[in-house]
């Protein structure tokens, strides 16, 4: 069930990238998609249990797998920096293309 929702999020983001006309909306859709991917990693990590894997006096329970979480942290940071870079690029483009419609920008900039 949870997995189905996660994949629905990823697909919503992917369709948004194709169907939205506005460049900012495309970038937001990409963000939705990457949120879905992050959620999927969390789902995979919690297959075996939900407890946080830290040293404590609590007797051994079923811990969540720390490895996918560690990996996805890196991916979150990379995703954030790419988003920021893209939005800066869009700001620069918006000076000459105030509507930011993807087709217009493409028409103006394809030789």
């Amino acid at each position, binding site marked *: 069930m949870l997995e189905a929702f996660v994949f629905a999020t990823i697909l919503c983001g992917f369709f948004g990238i194709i169907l939205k006309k506005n460049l900012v909306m495309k970038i937001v859709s990409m963000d939705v998609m990457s949120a879905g*991917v992050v959620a999927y990693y969390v789902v995979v990590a919690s297959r075996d249990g939900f407890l946080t894997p830290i040293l404590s006096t609590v007797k051994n329970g079923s811990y969540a797998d720390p490895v996918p979480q560690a*990996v996805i942290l890196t991916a979150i940071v990379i995703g954030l920096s790419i988003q920021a870079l893209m939005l800066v690029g869009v700001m620069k*483009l918006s000076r000459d293309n105030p509507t930011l419609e993807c087709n217009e920008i493409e028409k103006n900039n394809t030789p």
Partner: protein
Amino acid sequence: MNTITIAWIAFPFFVGFVIYLLPKLDRYLSLGTAIVSAAYAFWLFLQPSPLKLILLDNFGVTLEADQLSGFFILTNALVTLAVIFYCWETGKSAFFYAQAIILHGSLNAAFVCSDFVSLYVALEVSGIAAFLLIAYPRTDRSIWVGLRYLFISNVAMLFYLIGAVLVYQAHHSFAFAGLRGSPPEALALIFLGLLVKGGIFVSGLWLPMTHSESETPVSAFLSGIVVKSGIFPIVRCALVLDEIDPIVRFFGVATALLGVFYAVFEKDSKRMLAFHTVSQLGFVLAAPEVGGFYALTHGLVKSALFLIAGVLPSRNLKELQHTPIDTPIWIALVAASFSISGFPLLSGFGAKVLTMKNLVPWQVIGMNIAALGTAISFAKFIFLPHQKQEEKSNLRPGFWLAMIVLIGGLIGANVVYYKAYSFENIIKPLATIALGWLAYLLIFKHSKIKLPRFGEKFDDLVGFMSLILILLFWMGFAWLGI
């Protein structure tokens, strides 16, 4: 051993930041880094292969440097060296050199990865650095081209991440070898990411515009080495897992033919070179065992050709036929064109022979057609008019230094496969080239056909991803019998 490798991986990133602190020294520092990488590549060739760096409790996250990595690292070093020489007197800012060196470092890291996570990080860093280099002129067009590149590669890498976690779920390890017991969708998602990054088949249709609209040195960088970061893991996966080999070979042939088909009809010099990059990457994948050597020769030759295309008076091949070019430039252009067509004396010949020897039977016809197409399209350059210019040419010495590095590398790389020089091996490429020239002079020189820009719109590129995903899933499902 391990210390040297780790120091060499970290060194370019360190230098990249130091360049900001000491902007006066930017060119010298970046030059030094490229030389260090070249030295490391030669050192790697002398070491017993493979050199493995295994962490404690690693979950499959390992680094592995072998002969294949050595070829890619050497390509990276030589291309970077040539680009820096080319930019020497152009007054580029410290920002440009810093990004170039960080790009160089992230590619180096990608070429020693043998697991999906470190590869992901290296590819994303190289994507960001490449975007900053493409957008360096700050014009609207360059920003749009860069944005398109970053967007496409980032979406592809999101798919790749899903694939990586599926591999982890199956084996609790991220190693390349984990593809074996994983579900077919893991293979499909991971390969989609790598095919887009490497510019293979229809996933590579973003490549022509990106590579032709960038500045000359950046184009040389992108075509010479950046796309190889997507190719390298595919080749390595094909070597680790025999089941994947037919899929990789299929994409190799399909890509070689697609790229050459467009290149033969192309009228713009830089776009033709970009389509050729697509086709030559297909040659690398067509025979994974010897892909490293082919990647080396292609990287050298393609960077040289892009740098030369930048100094030609026009980009339009029709106009170039009426404006004679300076003889020394023409000689460099012909040397590079001969190498890529597979003419003896240059290492493009050895690489082509080696690839052709390692094909499986069903690939032979396709790859020979692709080789013929290569000869046809490079005849466009070889038969350009040339004359000795009266006035002193205004070319910078840096350009000639870059040419010496690249073309010298092409001649020197003959050492790798000197056994290629036998009578029957020499006859076949010469016949191919002769046929290609004949076809060019009789048919293609006068052809007025201009192919439409099919599938290069942004939405098409994203849409193609879903189609390729379905194709890959079907292949994984049907061919691998998982």
